[in-house]
């Protein structure tokens, strides 16, 4: 029973991290129908911004969340206005957007190599290796904090999308952009805002990841793949679905260790992805249900 509890708790905490990683990717795809291949690059950039704030100014990574989110948001808006909005909408622009955003990722990564070299960096705080007791287990303070922030992000995002005018406009644009134009919604503004929010969420994921792991300029590529799996599992464009899919993926990966060698547990998620794409292409929780 103790072992079961341990695995469940490990999966739930891991799900928090996974969900934070995937929210941004899901949101941008859900509204703009653009697969943001630069998601990994922004995760990496978020990690470095947090690290810089910690190294240069001694700011705790959790206190630097507003700054990292703001920087990532502005970066997202700039990428959208400077690049993405010039691409054709819909399937015609799909390949171009993939290539363009992949290119932006390469530029970001190589810029990071130039600025910070390939050295692995870490953010160490006095609570980095501290634990709290719960359910008869010793839980990492950092992991619990990341989980808490993931839940908070989910709640805020859900409330924003369902209770505010802008949030409702985002959901409306996700459903039918043309009709929104007819009723006076500034679709371009909504696209720009959504891209900014999605990018800010990726930056937040990078910062949270940096408080747990060491990272270098190639950080983020593995996270991008995991995020894809989660977003597809949860249904493209579904925020609640994303959170649920993150939990399912984490549970499957963690419990797989009971039956599989540890190095194969990461592959279980991809098997799950293939199964979902074949059996339920709209994701486990359908799609286009932002919020």
């Amino acid at each position, binding site marked *: 029973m103790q*072992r079961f509890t*341990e*695995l469940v708790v*490990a999966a739930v*905490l*891991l799900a928090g*991290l996974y969900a934070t990683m995937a929210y941004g990717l899901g949101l941008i795809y859900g509204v703009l129908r653009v697969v943001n291949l630069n998601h990994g690059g922004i995760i990496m950039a978020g990690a470095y911004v947090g690290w810089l704030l910690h190294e240069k100014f001694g700011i705790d990574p959790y206190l630097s969340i507003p700054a990292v989110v703001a920087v990532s948001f502005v970066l997202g808006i700039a990428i959208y206005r400077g690049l993405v909005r010039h691409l054709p909408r819909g399937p015609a622009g799909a390949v171009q957007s993939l290539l363009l955003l992949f290119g932006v990722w390469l530029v970001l990564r*190589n810029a990071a*190599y130039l600025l910070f*070299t*390939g*050295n*692995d960096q*870490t953010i*160490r705080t006095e609570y*980095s*290796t*501290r*634990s709290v007791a719960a359910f008869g287990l*010793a*839980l*990492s*303070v*950092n992991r619990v904090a990341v989980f808490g922030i993931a839940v908070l992000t989910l709640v805020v995002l859900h409330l924003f999308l369902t209770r505010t005018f802008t949030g409702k406009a985002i959901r409306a644009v996700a459903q039918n952009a043309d009709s929104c134009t007819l009723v006076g919604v500034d679709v371009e503004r909504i696209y720009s805002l959504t891209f900014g929010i999605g990018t800010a969420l990726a930056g937040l994921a990078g910062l949270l990841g940096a408080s*747990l*792991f*060491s*990272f*270098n300029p*190639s950080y983020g590529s*593995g996270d991008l793949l*995991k995020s894809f799996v989660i977003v597809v599992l949860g249904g493209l464009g579904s925020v609640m679905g994303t959170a649920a899919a993150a939990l399912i993926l984490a549970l499957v990966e*963690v*419990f797989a*260790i009971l039956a599989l*060698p*540890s*190095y194969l*547990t*990461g592959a279980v998620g991809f098997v799950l992805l293939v199964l979902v794409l074949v059996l339920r292409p709209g994701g486990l929780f359908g799609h286009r249900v932002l919020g």
Partner: protein
Amino acid sequence: MTPTTRILTAAALSLGAATLRIGAAQAAQNTIKIGATLPLTGAEARIGGFYKEGYEYAFEQQNKEGGVKVGDKTMKVELQLLDDTSTQSTAQSLADRLINSDKVNFLLGTYATNLVEAQSAIVEQNQMLYVNGGGAASAIYKRGYKWVFGLLAPVELLADSMMKWIDEQQKAGKLPKPAKIALLWENTSHGKDFRKGVSEFAKKSGGGYEVVVDESFELNGKDFSALLGKVKAANVDLFLSDSHLPDYITMQRQYVTSGMCHKILSYGARGSEKQAAEALGRKNVEYILSAVWWSPLLGQKNEIAKEFVAGFKAKHGREPEWYQAMGFETARALFTAIEQAGTLDKAKVREKLVVMKLPSLLPGGELTFPAEFGQQSHAPFVVQQNQPDGSAPIIAPADAATGKGVAPNPNCGK
């Protein structure tokens, strides 16, 4: 211009060009061109930079002494270094370019097993002499390649060196017999070699060790809690893992927060890095055991190492790590073989490397490329253990030791 003038002008120009070519060829004959690629950008850029420092220092020292004596002539050595960007395809194509377009006399190796592995096939096809200090996986040397020489001893030997020290502690009654081992290894050739080394030692021990957890994990893991939970449930005595620096930091963070403590704790070649102590806190890396190919502490016992450490420190203002030492020694081995052969003929230089017994800065004090191991050095590893004062003395082998190791881990039960 009349036809006669045109002919005369062309003849004069041809003569001039021929003279220039002869002059260039003569200059080239006074220089030995040695090619190399290193990962100066990309994922391995940091370590690639360290190897570059080692190579450059070796070339500088050699040229300071006049160069390499080839027969009755002393020739300068010139390093043609290219950036392989940490990718296999670039490492291969640049090796091909150095051999076939730039016509270098010899090649020095790049860093990281996967890149050396990629280049080794190219150099073998082109019968180019290739001395490397960056590829440790024994798989590279088991292919029967004739032109590939490696200075890094296999990781199996790393595990073996560490287990020998652990065995001494067990024989001294400091560790239980049989001792239960949790063996965690990254799913790479490095990890597989480590696993093989520990498993074989345990098998040969006649019941001294029992591997009760034997699990591999993917590089750059996000969560090791399930894996560590398995280790915790198995109630082992020795926690032996093999991982790269990022996974070492992530795993050790989770290990510490889970409240585990084992009589022996190791992450293979990782453990004594300053960066890890900074990321984890000095207290959390205490008594971690590691085994590495070289340590600047060898300078206390080995004259060549002492001279290298002093010279490098004078140039760079800091102590070298094993990467720079390997780069330096790789180049030195090639220079020595050329001198011994007295010619730039690759086959003859190769013959000298095959029988080489070079007094070396490596542990054991001698560099050889044993044919039975596919021309891969089997120099011993040095075993180090982190101490509470922040130092990591060499604790084995005895002839290189600069301090005493502690077992079992005094922090357990505190």
